[in-house]
């Protein structure tokens, strides 16, 4: 990922210099153009991948109770009896006009558009992503800056150890452990394990467990859930995701700043007698933004496209679960739309990361 990013800036910058166009506008236009092509390719790949899977929507829905006649009737209704290429082009044609089409779960007189299926799920996913990012990004940057400032101290080591531990466990494990913690609040006192411990230890463990708020282990929310309850219900998935993504961003922040701290201009600042905190925030950080922002963008993209496991564990109705459901039932229009949303998310976030790295880098912003 990093290597790729570096290459892109490397070929982006010289071009900008030669053509004397505002590099930000140029990058945006170029990327959007590439983005559209990427989306088109993604749609072809996804469509053919699903076409290659055994079974189709009619057979998947009817399962064991499928008879040839009912399968044929259902296939006809949702248009699966047409050749794949024809289906693809009629879909992409509508797509180009902004019509995501209808889910295969639609029936005559009961249309379920892909847009109305995806919209609430996408909102939920965005909600969780934003909520997590609001906590995780400042936390990671703060910890990273502090770790760089006090590098090789006990604080640096502690932060590194803890974040590396949480990132090393698979996310479902972290999720289940957190859920187990919540269950233990009520049940710990009665377990054999608690009885085998010395009383003071058992009591203090029990006390500690009860200090933890009783977060809901079931994050199932719907469109009628009030805002703050939504936040409350999404707490567990959000904590899990925070634990999973903080390490990456935090270590990149730390590394980027430490890298800068060895440059001559920092030595100069130090010789001028500036305080270490000021050196880091005013001199090192502005030049370290590019790699940090890239990693942040990468992690934000993960928060939107990669959280299906956490969604399943906490029964949070996000796009990830929707897409898995749709693949299982071969609901091609929904899978396609999800894939495009995911691809678009990646493209946009990377674009934003590039814009920020250009905007924060005077040499790229004002090419000579």
């Amino acid at each position: 990922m990093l290597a790729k990013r570096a290459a892109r800036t490397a070929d982006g910058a010289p071009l900008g210099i030669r053509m004397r166009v505002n590099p930000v506008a140029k990058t945006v236009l170029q990327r959007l153009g590439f983005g559209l092509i990427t989306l088109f390719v993604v749609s072809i790949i996804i469509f053919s991948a699903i076409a290659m899977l055994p079974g189709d929507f009619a057979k998947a829905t009817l399962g064991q109770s499928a008879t040839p006649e009912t399968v044929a009737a259902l296939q006809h209704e949702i248009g699966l009896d047409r050749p794949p290429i024809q289906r693809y082009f009629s879909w992409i044609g509508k797509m180009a006009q902004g019509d995501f089409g209808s889910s295969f779960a639609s029936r005559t007189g009961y249309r379920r558009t892909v847009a109305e299926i995806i919209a609430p799920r996408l909102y939920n996913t965005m909600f969780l992503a934003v909520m997590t990012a609001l906590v995780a990004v400042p936390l990671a940057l703060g910890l990273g800056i502090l770790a760089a400032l006090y590098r090789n101290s006990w604080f640096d080591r502690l932060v590194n150890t803890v974040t590396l531990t949480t990132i090393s466990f698979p996310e479902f494990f972290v999720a289940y452990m957190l859920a187990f913690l919540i269950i233990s609040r009520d049940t710990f006192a009665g377990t054999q394990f608690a009885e085998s411990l010395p009383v003071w230890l058992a009591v203090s463990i029990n006390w500690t467990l009860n200090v933890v708020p009783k977060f809901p282990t079931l994050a199932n929310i719907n469109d009628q859930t009030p805002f703050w309850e939504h936040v409350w219900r999404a707490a567990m998935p959000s904590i899990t995701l925070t634990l999973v993504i903080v390490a990456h961003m935090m270590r990149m922040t730390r590394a980027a700043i430490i890298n800068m701290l060895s440059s001559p201009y920092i030595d100069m600042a130090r010789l001028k007698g500036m305080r270490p905190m000021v050196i880091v925030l005013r001199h090192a950080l502005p030049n370290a933004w590019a790699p940090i922002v890239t990693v942040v963008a990468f992690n934000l993209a993960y928060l939107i496209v990669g959280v299906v496991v956490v969604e399943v564990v906490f029964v949070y109705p996000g796009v990830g679960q929707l897409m898995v459901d749709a693949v299982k039932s071969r609901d091609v229009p929904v899978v396609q739309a999800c894939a495009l949303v995911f691809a678009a998310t990646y493209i946009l976030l990377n674009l934003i990361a590039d814009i920020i790295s250009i905007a924060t880098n005077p040499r790229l912003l004002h090419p000579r």
Partner: protein
Amino acid sequence: MSESEYKLRIAQSLVGRGKVSRRDFIHLGVAAGLTVAAADQIFVTTARAQPQQGGFAKLGMAHGATTDSIDPAGYPDTFTQTAFSGAMSNSLTEVDAKGGIQPDLAESFESSNGAKTWVFKLRKGATFHNGKTVTADDVVTSMRYHMGADTKSAAKSLLEPVSDIKADGPETVVFTLHSGNADFPYIVSDYHFVIMPSVEGKADWASGARTGAFVLENFQPGVSAKLKRNPNYFKNGKPYLDEVEFIAITDLAARMAALSTGEVDYIGRADLKTLGMLKRNPKIEIIEITGYGHYTLPMNVTMAPFDNPDVRMAMKWAINRQEIADKIFLGHATVANDDPIAPAIKFYKNPQPQHSFDPEKARHYLKKAGMEKLKVDLSVADAAFAGAVDAAALIRETAAQCGIDVNVVREAEDAYWDNVWLKKPWCASYWSGRATADWMFTQAFAAESSWNESFWKNPRFNELLVKARAETDEAKRADMYGEMQQLTHDDGGSIVLVFNNFVSAKSKKLAHGDVAPNWENDGLKMAERWWTAEA
């Protein structure tokens, strides 16, 4: 009996109907000479044992997908079945907790003409949620929705024996069958055959107006469905709950956690591996019912080597069912005997001898088939039933001791029913069971059935099947079904491994009567039948 004791008795019966508060009851109890604790105990037990009105239950279902809809042509799994059929709708009949058939939306039913004509009289005054009275036309339209060439209903084949349905006045529906079927009222109890209003001659399923105990309030496919009490429900006093919410929790661990933390009051399909931990929780009760569902290994009797009945017999003796029940299903299954009829079903007769693991007998039958050694493929995936792959591994071990080399072929879970079942010579399969012997045999063993998974066409069996169906003399039917069960046991191509238990768990906040075995979740009718217990 003193006056206060007498009063206490009366109070006790009133508690059951929720008309006496706990405080008043304890007062009376103390006056009658009981301690406060004892009076409280009596109050709690009585209050629990008697259904009481009110309350809200959150029910965690083991299924649910974004493609779910309220269209009764589908209802693929327990989420849609329990919420949209069991809670929201009614069929003409229902299966009770003892496995008997009871009128539901019909008031009564009777047959004539050798069980070829069935007349259902509808309940008077039953209405749909939109206020419209249920008429015979609605019933005819609803049933026709599952019939005909262009139906997309998964239940189409169930109604194939029906030649005509017509309304006879506003409250009578007459079904005419191609041939007699004494168990026909069981067929119409199926969860697909819910009664919907007829709008311009078409079954209107999309409006969600049904006849059931609950009215749909909010449904988000794959997430949850919320229903509230139908105040005009035609069954007196039912339902007890004011509101139910069905929540799709497909992840096993999430389901267990949700019940443990009190997020839901009930979960279907509890995790057998961690059931012990759940049992330790004093607020939770486990419900275990031996249902009709069973796991089978159908052998295609039209393909070698299974076209030889002796080979089939050798296979039946080469499997250690007890070990599979104990190790794969952790004891939550009942060993079966190559007979698909569950012990709880009418006309069940255990065929003799009980097939068990016996290498001697297996070798004997193999020799009789003229073979020393045998090599067969067993195609499995956990899509057939959870644990199928592990069960196949155990079978390979026991069969090896009988000189049979079982090559376990692990198939893709996706489209298993499409590519493996009914295609491969030997595979794994699952039947959720049917409420009558006839229904089960007709679907999975009859010569002409498209789901005759072993392609078994025993002339005597098929002759008996038709005869027994139309026979109205119970004793004669019992004999015939007994013989048919013996035939499937001795000659049939389906190895019936075990009957699976429905293992679910609930918070003690919920109470219920006898739990029906015909489907999961109290015959899918838990919302209508259960109530909240005080305390």
